[in-house]
């Protein structure tokens, strides 16, 4: 079995691997975290600890899923708030985890309602021997507007609370950002100005997942009613990647340490977050669906990827895809590439024909007798929708041509990708 060094250093703390459970239902007590450590997770961000006077009172039921065809958990909606155990129990669990798993990393997630809360909580988790603090400024389903994402969208409050935490603790600290905001950069900069060393993002996206059409109530139904709450899972991955990429290319934030969160369930997802600038990775939804064991394939798959890429440390990969993401106006618009149809692979379903006609440029002709498509290059714009809908990978990139009047050599244009060439 492949063996590679997956360790990373993040905010001055050494992690044996970058995989952490995010602050959520998956790590709300000692037994859960211990089991996750035993199964190979590098760390946990223990479920958010709130102030002593904040009473957590949860609804039942509290989850919903978005499905597509036969696929469950395309996205996941969650109404649970922060840790339901008492402050004393949580602090005890943190301490015990560190005692029994000294090589694993225990991050304490905290959330207060005012500066005093934040400072006190920071102090308490530091005394409990946590390795790091994560400030939860982003939970979208709190029953208090002084907590959660309402705070995270206000840069002044973010800065003030970060400074409070820094007064209470000298532990490394990251601020967890909400995606329920147009531009994350002001909030991220405010948290750095307040003393944060890194950013964790994204928290869940405010959502309504489904409506019961008979009762006309959103799901889950809590005694006849429902609420907007956080959405997570695979469906939010593109949103998370976009925020992380934008943070890492913002002026002054190029080396920003990021703990990436949002729909990670395979090593490929993990690699994508790393390539856009995440150093550590946090996971919940896929654990809720499949359990802690998913870390085995994420670690092993990431090792194989490192081997394939010829790197010995993940640090060599972090943020390395960002230079290839440019503003839309800077993209090369001088050429187009036609699809190439492999008639030996084609099974004659006609999906490319339907999609090209109804969704693109009527550039695929269909022979009803042989049930085979052909590309009409006089109409084709090279959009490659046909490639995406082909169920057997029979359509790949073919001839490249310069647009009329443009200079350059079409053959030099790089358009091939794993997605476009392999099924």
């Amino acid at each position, binding site marked *: 079995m492949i063996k590679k060094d997956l360790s990373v250093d993040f905010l001055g703390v050494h992690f044996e691997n970058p995989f952490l459970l995010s602050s959520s239902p998956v790590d709300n007590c000692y037994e859960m975290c211990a089991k996750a450590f035993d199964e190979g997770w590098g760390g946990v961000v223990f479920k958010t600890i709130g102030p002593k006077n904040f009473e957590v009172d949860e609804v039942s039921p509290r989850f919903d899923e978005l*499905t597509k*065809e036969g696929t*469950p958990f395309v996205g996941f909606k969650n109404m649970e708030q922060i840790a339901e155990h008492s402050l004393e129990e949580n602090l005890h669990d943190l301490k015990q985890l560190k005692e029994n798993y000294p090589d694993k990393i225990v991050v304490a997630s905290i959330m207060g309602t005012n500066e005093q809360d934040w400072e006190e909580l920071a102090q308490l988790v530091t005394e409990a021997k946590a390795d790091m603090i994560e400030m939860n400024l982003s939970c979208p389903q709190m029953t208090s507007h002084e907590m959660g994402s309402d705070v995270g969208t206000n840069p002044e409050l973010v800065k003030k609370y970060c400074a409070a935490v820094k007064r209470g603790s000298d532990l490394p600290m990251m601020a967890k950002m909400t995606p329920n905001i147009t531009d994350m950069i002001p909030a991220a900069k405010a948290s750095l100005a307040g003393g944060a060393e890194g950013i964790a993002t994204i928290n869940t996206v405010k959502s309504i997942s489904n409506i019961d059409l008979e009762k006309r109530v959103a799901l889950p139904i809590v005694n006849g009613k429902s609420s907007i709450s956080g959405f997570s899972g695979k469906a939010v991955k593109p949103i998370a990647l976009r925020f992380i990429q934008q943070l890492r290319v913002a002026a002054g934030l190029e080396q920003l340490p990021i703990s990436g969160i949002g729909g990670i369930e395979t090593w490929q997802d993990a690699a994508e977050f790393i390539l856009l600038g995440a150093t550590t990775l946090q996971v919940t939804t896929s654990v809720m669906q499949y359990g802690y064991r998913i870390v085995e394939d994420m670690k092993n798959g990431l090792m194989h990827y490192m081997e394939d890429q010829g790197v010995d440390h993940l640090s060599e990969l972090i943020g390395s895809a960002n230079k290839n993401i440019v503003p839309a106006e800077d993209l090369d618009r001088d050429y187009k590439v036609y699809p190439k149809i492999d008639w030996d692979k084609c*099974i*004659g*379903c*006609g999906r490319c024909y*339907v999609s090209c006609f109804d969704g693109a440029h009527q550039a695929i002709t269909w022979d009803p007798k042989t049930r085979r498509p052909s590309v009409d290059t006089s109409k084709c714009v090279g959009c490659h929708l046909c490639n995406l809908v082909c169920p*057997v990978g029979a359509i790949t990139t073919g001839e490249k041509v310069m647009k009329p009047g443009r200079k350059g050599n079409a053959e030099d244009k790089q358009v091939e990708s794993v997605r476009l060439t392999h099924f």
Partner: protein
Amino acid sequence: MTKKYETEAPGYTMTTVMEEAARCLLCHDAPCSQMCPAHTDPGKFIRSVRFRNLKGAAETVRENNAMGAICARVCPTEKYCELACSRTGIDKPIDIGGIQRFVTDFEQQAEMDILQKGESNGKSIAIVGSGPAGLQTATTMLERGYSVDIYEKSEKAGGYLTYGIPEYRLPADIVEYEIKRIINLGAKMHYNVTIGKDITMDELKASNDAVVVAVGASEAKVLPMFEGNDYVESAVDFLARVKEAKGNIKDVPASAVVIGGGDVAMDVSTTLKRLDVEHVTDVVYEQFDEFRASKKELAGTQREGVTIVDGYVPESVDGNEVTFKARNMDGKLTIKADKIILAIGQQVNADNLGINIEHGVVPYTGYKTDDPKVFVTGDIAQGDQTVVWAVRKGKEVADLIDSELIGGTK
């Protein structure tokens, strides 16, 4: 003991049917839809399932096929829609029958009334025989505004659906529900009436605008050497007896030899095993590469542990000992069993109906007879003899009669 006989294999759940529907490539100009003899249009109803429109899916099935829930269970789809399925180019065809069963089960649970009676045109049709062809003819005629009387010689409707196909493959309550739907649409049923005996064809013709003969091939064929042998029973009689008793027959043999290689022989062999007959041997005239039974039924029979011997023809019988001769090699095979069941085909009884039958069918294509008021459909009309073809023939004869009587096309 009869549980194995009575229990149908479980169908899809909402989740598993979505998984199967998601395998469907949703082809342009779907080949499966072009291959359904009854034009049930799987391409359309699977797409409806995929987009969670189960009511729309049920409409597509039902409006095209009055036997939709039955076809879903008994159609040899491997020869029709699934044979054409593009997914075969990747792995294996979509389980179209299974998805159709889910859709029609949903239709029943939701108590949908999809078929609508047409506005009365004052014309009346008599149908002789209530098998699938007669029932489909009735449905289409009722939708077009005709009044319909169905004459059935037995005490229940459905023909082979009711008296032949075993319970584990086609539960009686499914057949009853399909028939009830057609009765609710307005079909008047006359049970225990034999046309040509209790009522003459002339009387029927006098009181109706058209008469459709859909008597099917309901009587067993017997080889002369087996006549009068107490160990011998016909497949038709055996299956009807077991179905009527819901599997609780008293004379379950310890061993049985079945002769024949069609779906009926498979039904008999599998039924015997499900009644816990330990030793069942099916001897078949055809060799495996020329088998008539559908692959699905053959596989099911083999799974039950039936011994199948192909390429042998019965030569002589002495009490319960049958001797077969190899067709293509030198050699003989002698088997002794408690019971001998003949599944060598059925014949038509069209006595006093004025219809010329040769080798089980009318000697001409189409549905017209010499008498302009009399039509044929179902197994006695030319074409395949499956339920789905019965549906097709039912729709086609109804179209023909409608255009003859009203002058419309559809």
